């Protein structure tokens, strides 16, 4: 049971930060930004580059977060906002193009080899029969901590209040003196930071490689949509649900069906499981399980 919980948490922390970042920016800029998962990949590589340049890991991570935040703001201002004037599907195709360019650049610079931050492996911690590595603990702690901070930011500070006002009624928010451009840039920056953080944590528990972002695409979108696009904390809950579904499917022994034991669903089919959940959820709750205000997609 404990192992199940640990597995769920590890998987949740893999996709949560990126899904939350995607959702938070969607509340203001209404198009599904496919390039967002590539920010995570770029963030993982930026951290790698900075650690290779001699910075300690924490500093490298901070540098990478700031850098990717800036990249997100620049791309949003120069590309996505202009494309968005022609419609959200145009902007989405644009983001697809951007993500292909980002992949090509990283492939050219760093190659297709997977990299790791540290050359040695930390010994795993064992509690009973449950095993967890330090890296995985770090990733889980970082994910939970960031969601806590984000909740405080959204519901206890003026920035959060302005942001929520902007997302529910931009015209009214502007009339009451909210500086739209500043809030938008701030939130876009935040989404870039979250993506870089999520990507780096994924690089820590797995490997840093060029497919990192593309592997995230489906589960991250599933989590964000399940939680109600534009609802950041809903995305975190969506990530948790998707992880539970995935872990359940791969952990349940279907031996009783065929009268044997140790018969499991091949891991290859695991993403199908999360999409079945998504499909069922959307049939009954078309705007996501945790929908509050988003009505115009």
């Amino acid at each position, binding site marked *: 049971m404990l192992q199940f919980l640990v597995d769920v948490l590890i998987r949740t922390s893999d996709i949560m930060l990126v899904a939350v970042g995607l959702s938070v920016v969607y509340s203001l800029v209404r198009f599904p930004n496919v390039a967002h998962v590539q920010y995570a990949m770029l963030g993982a590589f930026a951290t790698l580059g900075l650690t290779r340049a001699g910075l300690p890991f924490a500093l490298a991570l901070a540098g990478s977060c700031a850098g990717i935040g800036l990249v997100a703001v620049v791309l949003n201002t120069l590309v996505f906002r202009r494309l968005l004037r022609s419609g959200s599907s145009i902007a989405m195709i644009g983001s697809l193009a951007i993500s292909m360019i980002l992949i090509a650049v990283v492939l050219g610079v760093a190659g297709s080899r997977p990299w790791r931050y540290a050359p040695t492996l930390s010994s795993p911690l064992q509690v009973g029969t449950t095993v967890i590595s330090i890296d995985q603990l770090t990733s889980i702690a970082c994910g939970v901590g960031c969601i806590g901070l984000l909740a405080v930011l959204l519901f206890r500070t003026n920035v959060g209040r302005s942001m929520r006002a902007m997302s529910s009624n931009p015209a009214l928010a502007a009339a009451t003196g909210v500086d739209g451009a500043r809030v938008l840039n701030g939130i876009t920056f935040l989404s870039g930071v979250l993506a870089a953080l999520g990507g780096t944590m994924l690089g820590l528990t797995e490997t840093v490689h060029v497919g990192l972002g593309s592997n995230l695409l489906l589960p991250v979108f599933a989590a964000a949509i399940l939680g109600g696009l534009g609802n950041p904390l809903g995305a975190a809950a969506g990530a948790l649900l998707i992880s539970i579904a995935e872990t359940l499917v791969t*952990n349940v022994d279907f031996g009783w069906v065929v009268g044997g034991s140790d018969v499991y669903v091949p891991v290859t089919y695991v993403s199908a499981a999360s999409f079945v959940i998504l499909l069922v959820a959307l049939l009954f709750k078309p705007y996501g399980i945790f929908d509050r205000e988003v009505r115009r997609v």
Partner: protein
Amino acid sequence: MKLAKVLYASVAATVLSAAAGKSVAQTVSVGAVLPLTGASASVGDDQRRGIELAVAQVNARNGVLGRKLQVIVEDSGGVAATALGAARKLVSVNKVPVVLGEFSSGITIPVGEYVVQQGDVHINIGSSSPQIRKIGDGSFSVIGLDDLSARFAATDVFSQKLKDVAFIAPNNSYGQGVAAEFRKRFEALGGKVSSVVLYSEGQSTYRRELQQMSRSRPQAYVYSAYGQEAATINREAYELGLNKTKWYGIYLTMCTSDTVPQAAQGQEGLEVASIGQGGKSYEDAYRQKYNEAPKSSFGSYAYDGVMVAAAAINQAGSTDPAKIRAAMRALGAYNGATGTIAFDAGGQRREQPYDKVRFDTKVVSR
């Protein structure tokens, strides 16, 4: 304007044909498709080195047909589509009579089929799926296929009193072939394969696959995986504490080429023997040129592939693919860096020596 274009084109054509003619006159070209990037990049680079050493060796002894031998190496990226593109280029642009490669069986098979269909000669230098046998006439293997290696592995594991094992290999022609063969052989001996997992290539984590395998509490894990995927598997097995159980790697140098030594420490396995009669001189030449020990066993097979091709071209007395095919069949036993190579009626290597190996900071024999 139009005239200028025609002029340019004709000048370019003249220069090109002159250059091509020149290279045809002075060299004999053979092609190779290798995974220089992708999951098997480490092995691919070792294969490239093996080819370089063989070319140097052949050219030091008067080359082929009195001309210099040249091997044109193309990257497959570890992807079948890219590999096919590369093979097409070698066959139709470079007009090579012989194509060597690739490494992964799933890629070697389509490349081999294409080359054979074009009437050229294909030499398999690193793939061992039993499916290789079905590529067809004109394809030859200098490496033994997995009916041989799986039998060796099953006997080796079973003789260590390990009766219940879990098996993991990639979900492609190679993995499917070796998994089926191993299971058949191991169960014939009286053992039990409690789970067979075929993993999807190119994932960044195999944690869940490993957890599924560990639930039946096997006495040993038998695995075979490509360099960088094996690195992920080994690392996650280490993090899950599964490395306390015995791990047995089929082609251990392939399985550990990219793994952190800490995670592979104590693993056992089999490896294609690179030390035949000529193996020692191969290793010496390798050390002299690259200042390190051979990174894998597969470089020596690439080396032998080139040597066999050169011998066949010399025997054929021509670069005509049909004549080279006939010469390959009539070659008899060839003493290479990997022992005696003789082809059976299907063009496959008749006998393949294997080494019992162990990982102790690097792969050593046991």
